[in-house]
């Protein structure tokens, strides 16, 4: 779609949001590059939804600035009309059909009736709700509402889609469908900001992640870099004596290796695997098995957040 990769579609600088004495966001600086699937991770109450609400102009920040597509966000900003969003559990008028709900919100965005109807049908088709388009939303299951929320966010193909827990309430098949849909969006040039606590989902989909904990950013960057910085070399030897000899040989050239069990050890991340093998070979020690291991996003997340939940935030 020709968007500059370096351009930030969401940017916050020193963002703060307090609810009374509770600080939900504290000096949050975030940059979401265009064309990415940006995973916004954090335990319940970390401030993920508060961030989204501030960025969408639903909440006024207590301090700092937020920008969308390069424009400052304030309640009423026109830039918001170019963003598709699903915030928390999707809310619709229960007495209206799925089609009428989308039609209503498309009309509110200023689309002409025929265009609004066309885009509503298209969006319902993308989330496979065409068959129930004329049914009242009041009778929809959680999963159907979730799909409708995604349809609303996709209405009119906005350049930025913000999805807050999009797969919550979906069955496994539905989750896969949504993930495929999200991947497709990015191929078409859309940036997806995905707030989730489903780490497997983030690991599978996201090119960039940020981890939020108690309203503060813990880490942020390309998903691959986060893992690369924490990957390690795992070595297994045929005998415990080989393992001990290997650890000693590596220590002699300044490479620290930590024993895991009687037969295996782990070499710190920075070490170059080829060099490690060569040093061992020079010492006449040959590992039986070598593997580059990286922590799962779950392990990384627990490591970064201390594995604890947050103070409740909005």
């Amino acid at each position, binding site marked *: 779609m020709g968007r500059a990769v370096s351009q930030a579609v969401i940017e916050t600088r020193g963002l703060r949001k307090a609810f009374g004495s509770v600080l939900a966001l504290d000096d949050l600086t975030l940059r979401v590059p265009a064309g990415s699937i940006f995973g916004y991770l954090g335990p319940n109450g970390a401030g993920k939804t508060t961030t989204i609400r501030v960025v969408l102009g639903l909440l006024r920040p207590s301090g700092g600035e937020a920008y969308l597509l390069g424009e400052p966000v304030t309640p009423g900003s026109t830039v*918001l009309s170019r963003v598709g*969003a699903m915030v928390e559990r999707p809310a619709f008028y229960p007495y209206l059909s799925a089609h009428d709900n989308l039609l209503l*919100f498309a*009309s*509110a965005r*200023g689309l002409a009736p025929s265009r609004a109807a066309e885009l509503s049908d298209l969006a319902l088709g993308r989330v496979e709700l065409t068959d129930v388009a004329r049914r009242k939303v009041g009778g929809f299951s959680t999963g159907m509402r979730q799909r409708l929320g995604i349809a609303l966010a996709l209405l009119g193909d906005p350049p930025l889609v913000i999805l807050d827990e999009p797969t919550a309430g979906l069955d496994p098949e539905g989750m896969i469908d949504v993930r495929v849909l999200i991947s497709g969006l990015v191929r078409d040039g859309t940036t997806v900001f995905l707030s989730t606590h489903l780490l497997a989902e983030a690991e599978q989909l996201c090119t960039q992640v940020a981890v939020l904990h108690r309203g503060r950013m813990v880490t942020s960057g390309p998903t691959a870099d986060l893992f690369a910085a924490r990957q390690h070399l795992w070595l297994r030897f045929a005998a415990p004596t080989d393992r001990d000899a290997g650890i000693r040989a590596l220590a002699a050239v300044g490479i620290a290796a930590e024993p895991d069990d009687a037969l295996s050890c782990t070499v710190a991340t920075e070490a170059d695997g080829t060099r490690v093998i060569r040093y061992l070979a020079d010492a006449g020690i040959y590992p039986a098995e070598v593997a580059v291991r990286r922590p799962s996003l779950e392990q990384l997340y627990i490591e970064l957040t201390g594995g604890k939940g947050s103070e409740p935030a909005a």
Partner: protein
Amino acid sequence: MIGLLRAEWLRQRKRRDIWLVALALVALSIPAYVSGVSNALVNIGYIPEPDFPPDFIEQVQEQSRQELLRYAFPMSIGTVIQNGQILILALVAYLAAAVTGAEFAYGTIRTSLVAHADRRGFLIVRLAAMAVTALLLIGLLVVLGALLPLGASLLGTSLPEVADPDIGGLVGFVAVTFLATCFVIGLTTLWAILIRNAAIALVLTIAYVLIEGAVVGLIVRAAGEDSVVRWLLPVADLQLLFGRVSGAQMGAEMPTLSAISVGIAWVLAFWAASVRVLARADIRE
């Protein structure tokens, strides 16, 4: 703005309670009219005790004839609106509380403001749409007021002809009723946005009317019956206007034009306050 109006039209016309409110207005106005006509006819046909003075009997029958005139076209329109006045205000208060309160209850305020971020525009269109709905409800009473005498004559009831209808008074009655509904819409919407709960908003609107009545009582006690100050309060001002269009001699010290200006100022103040509160609110729903 046109898009917002289209959205509001879709949102409101599919609300079942709006149609129920319209139905309730019709259902309650017809028996009130029938009962009023019946009472007037019974009084005209009243045969008094023989020892009653003839001029007293004549006076009673003249009063009944005048009463019956209220049910003849076009005065029937004013009568139907007057009978339905409290009802229409209560139903409009309900609608204002329900329509705005539901946005917070369903959480659709969030979806609406993400779809259309201009909160001022959103609420101005919402208030205007509710005012139009109120106007349509008043229009329904006007139509009913015009049709009921026709229905009565078709059923064989003979209603007198109104020789000199007070059309200006009728228009004034419709206008004041509309002004009152606009005030109720503004007041109830403001509560609904502040409290974010339809039922409590409705209760607070009723409470406001009662509290203002008490304040008016205090003003009268402190400053006397002739004090203009009490007419500066919205409910009292609307009561004054209703009195004027009904021909009652009340609030002589406050000119009608001033009373209309006070009423419009209060409507604008409550509408503006609602818009301002929503524009500055944190949407946490």
